[in-house]
């Protein structure tokens, strides 16, 4: 927990100053999770604000402060789902829709400014994003929360409100799909992307 239970309790009772402190404590972590779930840096803050907005209006439904973090993660996952659903509807691949980071990378690559290390890091990011992008959205989000965000099975159990065995099965299948995709990519390209970061 990044904050004391008493602070959550105060925020639950409508103390705006306490709520503000909760936002300040969690915003960076939540923005990081959102960035890795949605993959578009320019929209991360909007989705993050939506998460805290939902938190503000649902905090009184929280039974105990102990379940605050899974509750916040659930709101994060739901807001990311909603965003991705809206994005899928638009689903346009115009140059103007490329993320700022992608445009910068494209510019740098065009100008020959990208070093070998930057190129390798870019390859790792692109590879992981491509591997995760190859599996269904709900599996991708679940796998990202487990493997990248490092959430435990117990935490995931609370977020998804399903039992541990069901989660294990879903995670195993998702990981297996990513593994198959990874093997296919590696045997096709024959090059090693993994190395020291």
């Amino acid at each position, binding site marked *: 927990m990044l904050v004391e239970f008493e602070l959550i309790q105060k925020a639950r009772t409508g103390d705006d100053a306490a709520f503000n402190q909760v936002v300040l404590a969690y915003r960076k972590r939540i923005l990081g999770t959102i960035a890795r779930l949605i993959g578009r840096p320019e929209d991360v803050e909007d989705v993050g604000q939506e998460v805290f907005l939902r938190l*503000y209006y649902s905090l009184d439904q929280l039974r105990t402060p102990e379940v605050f973090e899974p509750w916040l993660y659930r709101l994060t996952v739901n807001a990311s789902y909603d965003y991705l659903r809206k994005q899928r509807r638009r689903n346009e691949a115009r140059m103007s829709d490329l993320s700022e980071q992608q445009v910068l990378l494209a510019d740098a690559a065009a100008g020959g400014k990208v070093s070998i290390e930057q190129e390798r890091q870019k390859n*790792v990011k692109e590879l992981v994003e491509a*591997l995760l992008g190859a599996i269904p959205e709900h599996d991708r989000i679940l796998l990202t929360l487990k493997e990248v965000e490092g959430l435990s099975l117990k935490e995931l159990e609370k977020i998804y409100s399903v039992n541990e065995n069901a989660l294990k099965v879903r995670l195993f299948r998702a990981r297996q799909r990513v593994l198959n995709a*990874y093997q296919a990519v590696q045997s096709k390209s024959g090059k090693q992307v993994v190395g020291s970061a």
Partner: protein
Amino acid sequence: MDQWNNELEQLFGQYKRLAPDPEPSSNFTPELWRKIEARQSLVVRIRRLTKVFVAAAAAICMVFALFLAVPASDNSILNGNYVDLLAETHPAENLAPLGIRTDTE
């Protein structure tokens, strides 16, 4: 298989390091509070509209209740029961041609 699993594990680890938590902009929290206040004012407006609607509905109900409670000025036709009214509108002499006999005959 273990080698692939390890590589994948490493790849996820590197990805996490390459995609660190972004620093929130200075506008993040003020913008959040602006959104909260905007939604609050919407909720307040809806609540106010609901109150007006409920008050108007209650007033209309009162008017109708008063209208029904106050007796009409010319309600002689409503005095007496159904049989009396029927007898009044159909005198006994009018029933004879229809083959209806009354006790008084």
